[in-house]
């Protein structure tokens, strides 16, 4: 029985569990729901849950474990030269899976009967599988075919066992629930306990995500450092990956490009964002504010790939033709300046709305005091409000900087791909995010340091942005307590 059918059967059993449990609980109360401990529906839900939880848990565990167990067995039966190291073992297993999958597909399409599939010779295998759309790179060896047949047999056996066990677990759950359903049984408490556990599980996903991020990057980064010395990665001034070996993978040019772009972005975003926030908070009438604030926030809702295209098609050529070439600073459309300015624009609404909130949180009494002493509005802003709001604004700027460092699409499309250490802002440079994309797209070999370096870059990026954010949140939180 297929997974889908098993799932359907479990659902039908759950429905039966709901109806039977509810009915039996009512029967024990002589049909009078007021004698029950809980509402009748809770008995039903208890029945359904008792079926679903063991059935689905077993099904999911089995689906995850079965391939691993079977591959272990199949690999153990392979001749030792095919499983000498991890890469060739993975390759052999992939071949076997592919042949086995192809045979299954052939049987499903009726190109082969199941008996014919079992007695297929290695010589015919490739042509037969090709006819059902499973293209194989080379002829199938006898060992692979035999292993594939083993694989299919084990998989079929596992599927049968899975169906039986899942159904047995579900039916057992059903019986337990129906027997439990008695008018004194505390069905609501039992259902609510399950709901609470579901809620806890859902909120743990956030933590699991973090663990997943860290685990995925740490394991590959460690792998990378075992193939490439760490001090070369952190201190070398050259970045020149070469998939044929002998690459130099120094992170410093990438960090330089990232920071240069971030600084330019902040030079654009901070003055514009901050002045816009000051104007909106201190000068604008209520009506202007109601119109302008959402308009500025539109910028934040536009996908970054749109800004990337804007950098590539409009800003890059404009800067090249009007600034870089007349000043003799190069003739590249993609440059640090292009990416920096566009990221700056992207970050304006971020800085302006955060600063706006922070400025509004400064107590009115401070303003009134300042006006009372005869200060003008701008003097009040400069000498009273900004100093009071400074920690919060610094926090906002740090958060915006962390966003600029992690920005990907704009730099991929606007900054260029050449890793350089240069001061010329009109030259194409590159960032960590560009290189992560570059090393991980296309055909990648997860054993080579040239691919694995992307994980080390990702780890560095993660640590930098996380550090900045934690620091910024700490500043903001500390400041908030000041006026509460």
């Amino acid at each position: 029985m297929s997974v889908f059918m098993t799932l359907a059967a479990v659902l039908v059993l759950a429905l039966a569990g709901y109806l039977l449990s509810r009915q039996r609980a009512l029967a024990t109360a002589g049909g009078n729901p007021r004698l029950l401990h809980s509402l009748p529906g809770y008995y039903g839900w208890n029945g359904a849950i008792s079926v679903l939880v063991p059935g689905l848990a077993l099904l999911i565990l089995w689906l995850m474990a079965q391939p691993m167990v079977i591959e272990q067995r199949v690999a153990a039966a392979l001749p030792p030269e095919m499983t000498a190291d991890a890469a060739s073992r993975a390759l052999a297993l992939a071949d076997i899976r592919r042949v086995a999958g192809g045979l299954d597909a052939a049987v499903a399409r009726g190109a082969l009967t199941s008996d014919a599939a079992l007695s297929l010779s290695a010589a015919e295998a490739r042509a037969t599988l090709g006819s059902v759309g499973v293209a194989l790179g080379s002829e199938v060896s006898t060992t692979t075919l035999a292993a594939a047949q083993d694989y299919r047999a084990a998989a079929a056996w596992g599927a049968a066992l899975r169906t039986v066990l899942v159904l047995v677990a579900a039916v057992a759950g059903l019986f337990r629930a129906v027997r439990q359903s008695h008018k004194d049984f505390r069905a609501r408490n039992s259902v609510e306990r399950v709901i609470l556990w579901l809620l806890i599980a859902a909120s743990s996903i956030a933590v699991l995500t973090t663990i997943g991020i860290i685990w995925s990057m740490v394991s590959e980064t460690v792998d990378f450092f075992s193939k490439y010395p760490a001090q070369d990665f952190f201190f070398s001034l050259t970045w020149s990956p070469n998939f044929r070996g002998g690459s130099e993978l120094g992170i410093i040019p990438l960090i330089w490009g990232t920071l240069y772009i971030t600084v330019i972005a902040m030079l654009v975003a901070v003055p514009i964002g901050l002045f816009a926030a000051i104007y909106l908070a201190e000068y604008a009438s209520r009506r202007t504010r109601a119109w302008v604030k959402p308009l500025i926030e539109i910028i934040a809702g536009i996908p970054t790939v749109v800004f990337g295209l804007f950098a590539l098609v409009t800003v890059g050529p404009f800067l090249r033709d009007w600034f870089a070439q007349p000043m003799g600073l190069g003739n590249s459309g993609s440059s640090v300046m292009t990416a920096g300015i566009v990221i700056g624009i992207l970050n304006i609404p971020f800085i302006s709305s955060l600063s706006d909130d922070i400025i509004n949180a400064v107590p009115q009494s401070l303003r009134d005091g300042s006006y009372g002493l005869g200060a003008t509005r701008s003097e009040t802003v400069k000498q009273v409000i900004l100093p009071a709001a400074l920690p919060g604004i610094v926090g906002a700027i740090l958060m915006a900087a962390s966003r600029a460092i992690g920005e990907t699409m704009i730099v991929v499309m606007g900054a260029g791909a050449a890793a350089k250490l240069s001061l010329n802002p009109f030259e194409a440079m590159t960032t960590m995010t560009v290189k992560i994309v570059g090393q991980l797209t296309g055909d990648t070999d997860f054993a080579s340091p040239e691919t694995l370096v992307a994980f080390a870059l990702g780890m560095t990026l993660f640590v930098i942005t996380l550090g900045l954010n934690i620091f910024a949140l700490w500043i903001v939180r500390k400041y908030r307590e000041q006026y509460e």
Partner: protein
Amino acid sequence: MTDLSAAPACLPRPRPSLLDPSDRMRRRNAAETRFRLYGLAAIAIALTMLAIMLFTILRDGVSAFTQASLSFPVELSAEVLDPEGNRDRAEMAKVTTIGYGRVLAAAFTAELGRRGIATDLSEKDIGALISRDAPGTLRAQVLANPALVGTTIDAKVFAAGRIDGFLKGRVTLDSAERDSNISPAQLRLAQQLVEAGILTSAFNWDFLTNPDASDQRPEASGLGVALIGSAYMMVLVLLMCVPVGIAASIYLEEFAPRNRWTDAIEVNISNLAAVPSIVYGILGLAIFINFAGLPQSSSLVGALVLSLMTLPTIIIATRAAIRAVPPSIRDAALGVGASKTQTVFHHVLPLAAPGILTGTILGLATALGETAPLLLIGMVAFVDNYPAAPPDGILSPATALPVQVYSWASRSDPAFIERSNGAIIVLLVFLVAMNVTAILLRRRFERRW
């Protein structure tokens, strides 16, 4: 002390009237005006940038929705297309697109002769006005319906990308001089064809339905696969992210005891919201593709990555909505004997629903526009087959709208930049629709307690 005694000497004599300001006052007022202008200038710059960006996208992108096509009769001669003469599909499939290309070029040249359009171009150069996609389309049409062989059909085929660009003003006689793909003579012929009504430009539905096409055929490329891929992913994100997000928020707001563990979860969520999106791509590549062995560039993996990315946003919005429900509602429910769970699910959640919905829509809008993580899980690959219908389709290779924008933008032919802008327009239409829905929902259901 010296300061004090010296100060009165420096002070200007008091003026008779406040309406006659001193120099110092004038300077202060000027500084005030300047400061105010800086603020206005900042807002003006930000909004101008936005306006320029939207304007360039519209200017360059609207033309992607129209397409030049050629209409002329084509005689599907049986000798060329079905040499065996038995209308057997397997036999006819031996005639490649090159054969169909010759048929089209010959029919087109013949039509020019019939209409009396004089040209000294060779048949090959005339045929180059027809899109390279046309022979394949015609072949599929004939193979689907072998009875067409031997008849004459009215074909309406795309014009080549450069001809399309000529009608849209992107390609000119000057630029054709330097272009190896088109000659000024061909453009002059195109001009004559427009006058004769053979070459026309019309709204191009194929831009929304066709799959992507190779570098040589910008005119045939469309957003079909990207739209399906994005739709699959949005549905999956909705199915995975919303229940989990709401459940997590309910737990954190209503049930969680204040302890280290829940503090850790909260700090975690606010930090996850700030993790660069590309890091989620790395996570997806390492865990869902390399570890769990899910297929590359499938909608399922894309949706999983986007869900994890959107989850913090949805949790933050949902928690705010739940917090906005006043405690008196909970007290009243508990007071009449509801359990804690019943209070939350029967009273708090329905009252928080508009806020949750708004937050969810905005979270989905972000997910719809996200590109970087999808590049890492292989969605940038060239996909010219429509994904299968669900549920199998979520495992077949697909691409997404923003990724299509990126992959078109990185091709060399300027016709793809136009299409990239066109794709952005489609993307922005969806985003505007989602945001407007969110705003309307907020207006309609907003409740002050």
